[in-house]
């Protein structure tokens, strides 16, 4: 059994492995950064740490999150940098068993980010790899 954080991105309920999550914070005043890929929403200062804010919708190529006002973000560490993953909302922390494999027919945008599925009661929830959200959409093959 392992702990999972259940959140919503682009009207989809997803799970993130709790071991990889630092905290959940409210983010406002994102400092925009020009000339970066669209999934990088900007920078945010969490006390004295500067976090890179990731628009998870843009990472999954499902549009963009409205970046004004206060947002919920999941803090993750990735290759010794800290990121704030913007999500629509955080629902719960649950305990669940080993993830199953992904469903065969998954939209392309989710397929790359999904590590498998976990079960909450009778509901199957996609388990998302935070690192793929940080990395953003794959560059188009030239």
């Amino acid at each position, binding site marked *: 059994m392992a702990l999972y954080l259940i959140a919503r991105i682009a009207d989809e309920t997803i799970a993130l492995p709790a071991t990889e999550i630092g905290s959940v914070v409210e983010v406002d*005043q994102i*400092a*925009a*950064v*020009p*000339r*970066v*890929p669209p*999934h*990088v929403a900007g*920078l*945010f*200062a969490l*006390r*004295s*740490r*500067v976090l*890179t804010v990731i628009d998870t919708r843009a990472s999954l190529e499902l549009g963009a999150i409205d970046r004004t006002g206060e947002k919920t973000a999941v803090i993750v560490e990735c*290759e010794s*940098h800290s*990121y704030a993953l913007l999500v629509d909302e955080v629902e719960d922390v649950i305990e669940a068993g080993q993830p199953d494999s992904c469903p065969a027919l998954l939209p392309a945008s989710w397929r790359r980010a999904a590590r498998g599925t976990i079960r909450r009661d009778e509901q199957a929830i996609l388990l998302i790899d935070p690192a793929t959200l*940080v990395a*953003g959409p794959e560059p188009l093959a030239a």
Partner: protein
Amino acid sequence: MDDLLTDFIAETRETLEALAGEIVAWEANPEDRARLDAIFRFVHTVKGSCGFLDLPRLQRLSHSAEDALAEVRSGARTPDAALVSAVLAIIDRIGELADALEANETLAEGEDEFLIAALARDAGSNIPVAEAAPIAKINVLPATPPTRAVSRSIRLPVELLDRMMAGVSDMVLARNELARLLRVAGTTSAVDVAFERLSLCVGEMRDSITRTRMSRIEGLFSALPRMVRDLSADLGKSVKLEVDGGDVELDREMIEMIRDPLTHIVRNALDHGIEKPEERCRAGKPEIGRLRIGARQSANQILIEVSDDGRGIDAERVVRKAITAGLVTAEQAAAMNWSGKLDLIFEPGLSTADSVTGVSGRGVGMDVVRANIERIGGTVDIESMPGQGLRLSLRVPLTLTIIPALTVSAGGTHFAIPRSAIDELVRPKGDQVRIERIGGEQVAFIRGVRLPVVDLGRFMGLTEDVLPALLVVLRAGGGERYALGVEAVHDHEELVVKPAAPALMASGVYAGTTLPDNSRPMLLLDVAGIAAVASIGLAQSVVEERPVERRKAEAALPTLLFRDLDGVTRGVRLALVERIEDVPTESVVESSGMQMLPLQGRLTKLYRAAALPATERLRVLRLSDGEAALAYAIEQVIDVVELRAELAPAPVAGPIAGVVLHDGAPIELLDPYWLFTSAILAPANDDSPLCLVADADDPWAREVLAPLLGAAGYRVRFAGEPTEGRISVIVTTGSAPHGVDAPVVRLRGTPDGAGDDSIYRYDRDGLLRALSQHVAGGK
């Protein structure tokens, strides 16, 4: 006890502790290569440090252990129990000596010899293993445990410092927040005083905690003069050390990581690079060798350069060594270029030294140097000019360094620029500093110097294409400069720069992130990166949008074509031409060897490619670089055309910058820079009037008169010398040479008139006036 010694003792003790396990493991399995290497590196490092700390005992011990281990490493000797014991005994001895050093005690020296003798190859056969082993034991458990002095320095894990740093930064932010709240609430003076005190304490604490992480690179450099002095004395060489850039601040951890590599490099330079004085004399170099060590911040890196003027490294020799050592095959070597071959010196087990000395040359060193630098994310580059010297450049990242920066803004967003990259700050205003559009791109003219403009707002996609309010002139490295257009300049601040996320760094325009006291994250700009990205962007926009027309507009500059006085068609960039004027020829004034022209109430220097025409009116171009003005005499204006920006440069500096093609015909372009600097004295060229000086044997004529005439724009020949072309005028202090048909100017030795038309020989103006009258009259 000085800091270096303290550091050495702490470091030796620490390594010994870490090595304890390795030693036991090696004893159990003497064939274990990795363990052997670790022990070898330890004694090697000790040897190196002892060399410049002047600890001969430790040096002798470590050197002999290193010798023995090197034999094992090269396969010349198989490690047996006796050797292992002997090496272990030496390592223990090193530990004891280090302890004794700290406690300021001395240990009996006699035992050293015994330990060193035990290392000898045949020692094992003479001393039974059973007897050799106790040597180690005796030293592991000394009869009287040495009393350690209480140390005043401690070593801390860097993570702890990081946590402290983050904590104090949070505290500063909390203080700022509190200050805001107190201002809003309106408080009594008692609260204000208390808050002030707290605020001061927090500030001081931040400074001292920041200092625990940062230190000036000086600390690293301060050991060098002594080391260079001692080493060069040992080696019988004279070396002058130049150290520069000690005030660059660097992460303490980084400095520690650089210390050993730098020591290695300096030793190598002294031992193998710089030659002995006799050899240097033979090679025609100054007897005293030069070693330069400098540090500076370059974009988001600290660059440390070590260069010497010694013999350099011959890449071919490195390759031969590498082939002999079996590191590369002859075929592989043949396919390598010079720098590839040179890079082989970073391979483990390769040394270019033919003999092993106590200083360096055992083939460890450069590989360790590179490994250490790469571990902290740096790079090592080597440049060798055989016979002339060697330069090693260490580049280490700037991360976690504090750098002074200028905060600017564009489109409402703040950015930081490292102050070290800033040349000056100017406001476009008037003629001195102005921005123009050439081919759709902004170009700044700052006191006559043209610089490309990168408008920060537009570059970042934050604003429309507007002319910027302020220009920050930046050095992009490699002598390249550009002007960054910004809306406003805010503050000079010391900023703690941290690495930005890879997605941000990939843009190539940021060097890191920083958090100023207002707790709004800010990005540090990569000055060189912006230059690179901006020019790429330019090239792309040319390709994307109407390629042909854009390119033409991009590359062509409006140019004024004219026929010069010497009949040649020349061009000058229209931007330089202020106006075209006709002036009376007689208004040209000769003054101190120059021709001047009164223009708009000011005397302006007149440049002419040939003698002035004998017409009443003279046509001149008034050229201006925004500050200085210059008149250029021409025959007539031909046209204004678009001429390509690239030109075939003239091989020598002169009034002609180079040649461009226009309608298939070459056009000489004037070099405004040369005109504004050098043309003031209108030096002689082949079209200048020829002046014959009759008194070939008179030293005054040669040494005083001839240079004066040359500076005034005449070609000077002495009587009896071959002359080409017509002689315009003859100058003499005595009689005119026979058979030359030219006007004669006579000089006399006294200021008082002699009743004839002669000119006093120090009446420079009179002489030049007379000459120009004759020359003009002769045409």
